[in-house]
């Protein structure tokens, strides 16, 4: 008897709390509540930054055993250099493939000629359902929702929400992310979508031309959501589907989402 009453009281409390939280969700979603929500979310950024700093220090201490730290630093330096070289190769390949007009439009340097804000990654999404990053720059630094986020290696994603001193970035790994790309060798066009393990590409067929592993995918600029020519990744594998109008491929993203520590926010590109 007592247990039953206790259970129904718990159920009542559960329903009341759920209703309260859903009401809060609906209220905080309103446009008039957006500034307060942004401020509240920014409030956690300093704590996350501190925790990230502690994590980096702990990593450094543990890595010091057996000179792992030095090897890691050297590995990081070589990796950065390798990424830069690979990006240059991709740029050169892509530029060679395109005619003069397209090359002018592609002009990778132009994308890095944009005005940018450097930001530190201070946190990541709380679960696997949304692949997001939190950065320590917000509206007070000129960052606005919709802006494009990159690293020296290539495209990271887009700013989803911005508070005064912090922002949330939806990465390409997010299952809802969509980016139109073209391939560096074949010139074929397709759409990259996020996924739990790897980026996926649906690439259109063209007569006598097929996508192949090792090609690079760069943003095509189609749709106006991203500037043309940002490196997305390398085709790791391609599944040809003769009966379909498109092939499927897996893309090795140039940015390791778990390893990104700094990003660049392009502040003067307005997605259409």
């Amino acid at each position, binding site marked *: 008897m007592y247990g039953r009453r206790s259970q129904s009281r718990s159920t009542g409390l559960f329903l009341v709390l759920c209703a309260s*939280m859903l009401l809060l969700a609906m209220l*905080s979603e309103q446009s008039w509540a957006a500034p307060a929500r942004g401020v509240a979310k920014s409030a956690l950024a300093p704590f996350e930054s501190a925790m990230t700093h502690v994590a980096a220090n702990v990593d450094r201490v543990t890595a010091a055993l057996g000179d792992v730290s030095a090897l890691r630093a050297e590995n990081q330096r070589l990796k950065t250099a390798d990424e830069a070289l690979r990006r240059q190769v991709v740029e050169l390949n892509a530029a060679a493939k395109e005619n003069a007009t397209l090359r002018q439009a592609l002009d990778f340097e132009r994308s890095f000629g944009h005005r940018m804000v450097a930001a530190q990654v201070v946190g*990541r999404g709380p679960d*696997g*359902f949304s692949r997001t990053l939190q950065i320590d720059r917000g509206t007070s630094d000129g960052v606005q929702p919709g802006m494009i986020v990159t690293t020296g290696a290539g495209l990271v994603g887009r700013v989803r*929400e911005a508070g005064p001193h912090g922002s949330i970035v939806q990465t390409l790994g997010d299952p809802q992310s969509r980016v139109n790309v073209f391939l560096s060798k074949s010139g074929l066009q397709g759409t990259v979508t996020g996924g*739990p393990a790897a980026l996926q590409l649906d690439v259109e067929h063209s007569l006598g031309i097929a996508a192949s592993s090792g090609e690079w995918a760069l943003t095509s600029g189609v749709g106006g959501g991203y500037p043309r020519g940002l490196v997305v990744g390398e085709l790791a594998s391609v599944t040809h589907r003769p009966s379909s109008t498109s092939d499927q491929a897996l893309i090795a993203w140039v940015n390791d989402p778990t390893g990104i520590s700094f990003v660049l926010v392009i502040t003067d590109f307005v997605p259409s």
Partner: protein
Amino acid sequence: MKRLAAAALMLATILVQVTWAPRLTVAGVFPNLALVVVIAITWTGGVRSGMAWACVAGLMLDLTAPGPLGPHAVALLAGAYLTGFWTRNVDRASVLHPMLAAAAGTAAYSIILVAADDTLGLPVPPLGVAMQLLVAASVYNAVLVPVALLIFRGRQAGGPAIRASSA
């Protein structure tokens, strides 16, 4: 004072989840420490404590995620309620039951989170991807819950801080 200390511990847990835990990604998921802690609190301190802390942890998680405040709190509440339902009907000393409760709680959390996001017009992953993540997260969290229970039972032996602080 105890409540503040417990809230600070919960905040630290959330911060670890969004900074360190992603390094432990397996099959697309990483430990949901907030959910594991809420399940451990529910198992050791009762469903009311669990639901109270589910709200606190959920709102903290919502501060680190895109979208409005509330969806993670509702999802954690579902996990806590399901675990509470489980504790009334089984042997609490068993190791298997908390693991099963954690797996079921994670499934409830994931379903409610995706449904809440969908209801609020937020982007949700495709069904196949969501199922894959749900299964992987359920296994991952189920493995971690016995460890959390060991910690909480140790704390309770020293003093029931979480239970007392949420009463």
